[in-house]
């Protein structure tokens, strides 16, 4: 007995939407990061689902790529956030708006 793929896709869609909205409305850099992770994992879920649907491993392989990229991104991103937090005693992304006209 298996659950229809549509449910997985709906869940992934909801996770992605929550992630996108959250990343846009929150100001704390750490929280934004968490929402981005949420979007990435929504995509991972889609990949796994379709791997199952098509009965091959392509989607699962891609998940590993996404995980690696996410890990690398977190390493760089957290380091930047840490430096900014040390200099400004906050992780508010709206404070970091010097690169503009």
């Amino acid at each position, binding site marked *: 007995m298996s659950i229809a793929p549509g449910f997985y896709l709906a869940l992934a869609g909801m996770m992605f939407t929550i992630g*996108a909205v959250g*990343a*846009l*409305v929150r*100001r704390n850099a750490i929280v*934004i990061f968490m929402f981005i992770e949420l979007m990435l994992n929504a995509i991972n879920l889609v990949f796994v689902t379709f791997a199952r649907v098509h009965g091959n491993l392509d989607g699962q392989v891609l998940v590993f790529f996404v995980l690696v990229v996410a890990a690398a991104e977190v390493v760089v991103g957290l380091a930047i956030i840490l430096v900014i937090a040390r200099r400004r005693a906050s992780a508010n*992304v*709206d404070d*970091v*708006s*010097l*690169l*503009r*006209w």
Partner: protein
Amino acid sequence: MTLSADAGAHATLAPYIVALPLAGAVVLLFFGKRIGRAAGVVASGAIAGSFALGVASYLGLLAAGEEEREASVRVFDWIQAGDFRVAADLLVDQLSIVMVLVVTGVGTLIHVYSIGYMAGDPRYPRFFAYLNLFAAAMLLLVLADNVLLLYVGWEGVGLCSYLLIGFWFERRAAANAAKKAFLVNRIGDFAFMLGIFVLVSEAGTLVVGDVNRAAADFDPGIATIGALLLFAGATGKSAQIPLYVWLPDAMEGPTPVSALIHAATMVTAGVYMVVRMGPVFEASGGAALEVVAWIGALTALWAALMACFEYDIKRVLAYSTISQLGYMFLAAGVRAYSASMFHLVTHAFFKALMFLGAGAVMHALAGQVDMRKMGGLRKVMPITGVTFMLGWLAISGIVPFSGFFSKDAILASAWQEGRYALWALGVGTALLTAFYMSRLYLRVFEGPVVVPGHAREHGGVHVHDAPPTMAAALVPLALLSVVGGVLNLPGALTLEHFLEPVVGHSEVPGGLTPWLLAGAALLVAAAGIALAAALYLAPAGEARRARIHGRARVPIDAARNKFFVDAIYGRAFVLPGKALSSFAANTVDARLIDGIVNGTGRLVAGASEGLRRWQTGYVRSYGATFLLGVVVIFSILFVRGVVM
């Protein structure tokens, strides 16, 4: 053009004749500071070596058969564009070897003279570097086998002339004179360049011999234009009407420069060029030669008139140079090319001598050039005085000095060609020449001793004669001025026959005529000297001069003001030129050009003013834009059915 491997042997030295002074110039320019006082010896050695090579080439040329004397040597291939080719060839023939010997011979003496004259100058090595560079350029000019290479030398001597006139550039007058010389010469050089274009388009080659052979087939009209353009170049370089105005001002340069460049060699380049390109001038059916002869004759008279009223001894000599160059063009204009070259050679001797004598006077009198403030100098500086006297007799045309023979050859040729008006102008100029040179000589060297105040010491006179290095140049030049006539004695015509294969034969009068002509020339020379003696040597001279000046105030004042030619040129060309430059700088450049540049900048800045508002700096707004973009793109793809 080399007829056989052996025949052109005497030309093989030609590249080294040019290279030696060039090497001297390069060494002195780069290591002059380290060489220091020895620079004069290095430079003199280089030019003396060049002279030795010139003599060797000359002997080789004499040893070659009559038909094999014209030889060229290829240094390298220079320009190749389609079937138009120019090679850096040097031509050694009778004409160029004469010029080489004059340039290096007189040049060596003037280099040696400069060792004494320039001693104590802070830029001593640089002076010799320029002098050597000049010699190299001048030798390239006379040895060039094609007109383009000749033009390279032509511009080279112009550059050196500029550098040496302005050698004491701290003096405003010297800097201005250098600029004036350069700009006036540029006018002529530009015309010369156009003349070269005419030659290329007509003959398709620039090799002197080929152009001259092809000249016979030129269309007379085009040949006239080409020849007149070439001659316009010559009027600039050789200071003829209307471009003579730079030469008197060029006397601001050191005196050896005036002697070498502005008397003996560079200014004769125009004469040499006209003689060299004679067939092109003849191809115009006489029109171009007519212009050459008349410009020459009128310049001779015009400059001589101004020389009669000038007090600056160097400027008198400068006007005299212009006048004598006029004689040479007069001769070239009546196709008496060898007479022209003969006068060129003797003039190089006696004019260089007199310039160097004037330099010795200035050296002794701390730079004084006003002849009213000196007198009787022969008694205190005998070497200078006596050598100058020989130069004076030579230029005045007293038998048997060199100037008599060369000037007589020119006048005889004019007479022979039936050009009695030109002959009369020449004789009139001879009278003035004898007069103004006697005026100069008698005022400076004869009569009671007069020296400027600062040269007097303890009640006595302290004026030194020329030091050994300077005397070493004066004495040989004086000897050459005396005996230079033997080069081309009437009857023997050595130089004439020597040059004949290159420049062609010219008729000389026979029978009694030459004796009468020579007698007439001698008579006017004597009259000129007598007139000068009556006005400047006789005790009553002062009163006579005052009387003459009282009666002829207007023309004399006009002559003193150079007949207002400089002022007219100033109004007609210099002021409009300055106005144009100022318009270009203050209006065109400041308003138009800057307006376009600044306007472009302002336009871009204005356009980006709106766009830059999008750069908020807020990460979240970038994120929202990003998301919106993705949604829009996917919507479009979705609507068009590309996805799903």
